[in-house]
């Protein structure tokens, strides 16, 4: 059930992509996402999709995992694809009352679907290959300049770390409490929507109570270890750029150049 979700799950490994600096991965991901939206014709989109698939191959994580993460948002992809089918101009190919499917519409639908699919796959690369702690660490470092505007960068990163860390704990706890209430005859599998929501109360209240208890314990434990925010704090694992990061940067720059060239030399398929 809840545990089968692969979207955003870290899979430890030793691939080149795993070893990249979290900051590199974050920035390059943002860059690629921009390219995906900058691509205006099939050639440039094809280029960027292939480039992303190459990165996927480099992660050495089975493609099944990526497909699984696609499954979660399959409905979203299909929905936007189908909606786009009916928008667009050009030659009308099929008509039924007020619904029209045009050449432009089909182009739009295919384009948007590939776009979202690529987007999900390349984002999965980041979450699959970067441990949550590296990810928040990288984010913190990247957001560092914001401290000038009195943004509590370290605190935000710490909150994210804690939230990520406690997801599996809370899932397990939910399972336990559900079982305990089921053992007392709580019926969570039948009835209408209102009955089902009501049936969740015996699960949610203990879950809230224990979350607060955990928060309390954690705060106490952190204070016992003299935690007082980010000031003066050093790290055990310091993020360092390596030669691989440079290669990754060059790779993305080449894609960037390719996308621009394709955009210029081929006509735009979508408007």
């Amino acid at each position: 059930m809840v545990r089968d979700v692969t979207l955003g799950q870290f899979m430890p490994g030793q691939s080149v992509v795993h070893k990249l600096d979290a900051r590199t991965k974050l920035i390059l991901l943002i860059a690629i996402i921009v390219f995906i939206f900058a691509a205006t014709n099939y050639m440039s989109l094809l280029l960027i999709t292939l480039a992303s698939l190459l990165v996927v191959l480099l992660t050495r994580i089975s493609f099944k995992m990526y497909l699984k993460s696609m499954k979660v948002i399959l409905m979203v992809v299909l929905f936007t694809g189908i909606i786009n089918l009916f928008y667009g101009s050009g030659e009308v190919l099929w008509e039924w009352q007020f619904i029209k499917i045009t050449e432009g519409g089909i182009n739009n639908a295919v384009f948007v679907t590939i776009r979202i699919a690529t987007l999900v796959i390349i984002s999965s690369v980041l979450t699959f290959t970067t441990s949550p702690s590296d990810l928040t660490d990288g984010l913190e470092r990247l957001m560092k300049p914001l401290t000038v505007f009195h943004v509590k960068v370290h605190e935000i990163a710490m909150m994210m770390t804690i939230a990520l860390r406690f997801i599996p704990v809370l899932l397990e706890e939910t399972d336990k409490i559900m079982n305990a209430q089921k053992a007392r005859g709580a019926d969570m599998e039948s009835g209408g929507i209102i009955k089902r929501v009501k049936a969740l109360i015996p699960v949610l209240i203990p879950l809230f109570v224990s979350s607060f208890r955990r928060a309390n314990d954690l705060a106490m434990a952190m204070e016992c270890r003299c935690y007082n925010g980010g000031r003066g704090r050093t790290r055990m694992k310091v993020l360092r750029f390596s030669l691989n990061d440079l290669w990754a940067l060059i790779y993305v720059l080449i894609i960037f150049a390719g996308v621009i060239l394709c955009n210029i030399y081929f006509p735009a398929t979508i408007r």
Partner: protein
Amino acid sequence: MSVIKVEELKLIYGAGTPFQKTAIDGVSFEIEQGEFLGIIGHTGSGKSTLVQLLNGLLRPTEGKICLNGKDIWEKPKKIREVRFKVGMVFQYPEYQLFEETVYKDIAFGPKNMGLSDEEIDERVRKAASFTGLGDEYLQRSPFDLSGGEKRRAAIAGVVSMDPDVLILDEPTAGLDPLGRDALLSQIKTYHDVRKNTVILVSHSMEDIARITDRILVMNKGRKVMLDTAANVFSRGEELEKIGLRVPQITKIMMLLRQKGIPVDTSVLTVEQGFNEILSLARSSV
């Protein structure tokens, strides 16, 4: 007649995935009506999984569980009835309290059974007094109670369903010695008065030996032994191989025996051991 009969029970988690794990592997046994059974095993031996199978929270991959002669998974829609008949108290049950008052929380189970208000009231009061909570507790919020009191309230919440079989999974975990002894003797009293079947899961040999009739020893999802405490402890070496320890006093008796002193090795408590040694000393003088 046996109240629970388990035949060739097998449970595989995550079958077909790389995480496949056999949690219970071909376990068969019978529990008699009114028996007090202890289940003991190392962490991860499958004892908690086994008891969750017994009340239908988990569905076995293979094998059969019969309650009063009827397969509990015969009609999967009726599994709730099984859960009312086989009451289950989980580890750290105090974390399942959720109502505004202790009274309402204890009444949750009987209410789900669809009983009348008078019947519920009677059961709640009976269950509370069984676990040593007086009437003055019933209108308090369960979140204001102490740890030990919370646990009693949670156990009362299962006892109030008046199950034919009561299962307690590590009921004394995290309690101080006094609280532990009090709780165990209350469970014993419950068993003596109601004449119901009770199953106690624990990894403390001392606790289990003192109050149960028979002990089921589990290891790696398999049944290793099912016998009386004295017989189980007489196989002390096997127990130690699977990471369990016989009670200290029994161990002492075994060592004495090895040294050639003819003591009874089925001794379970310090008091019995004391008397045994004393009588031996007297007779040899």
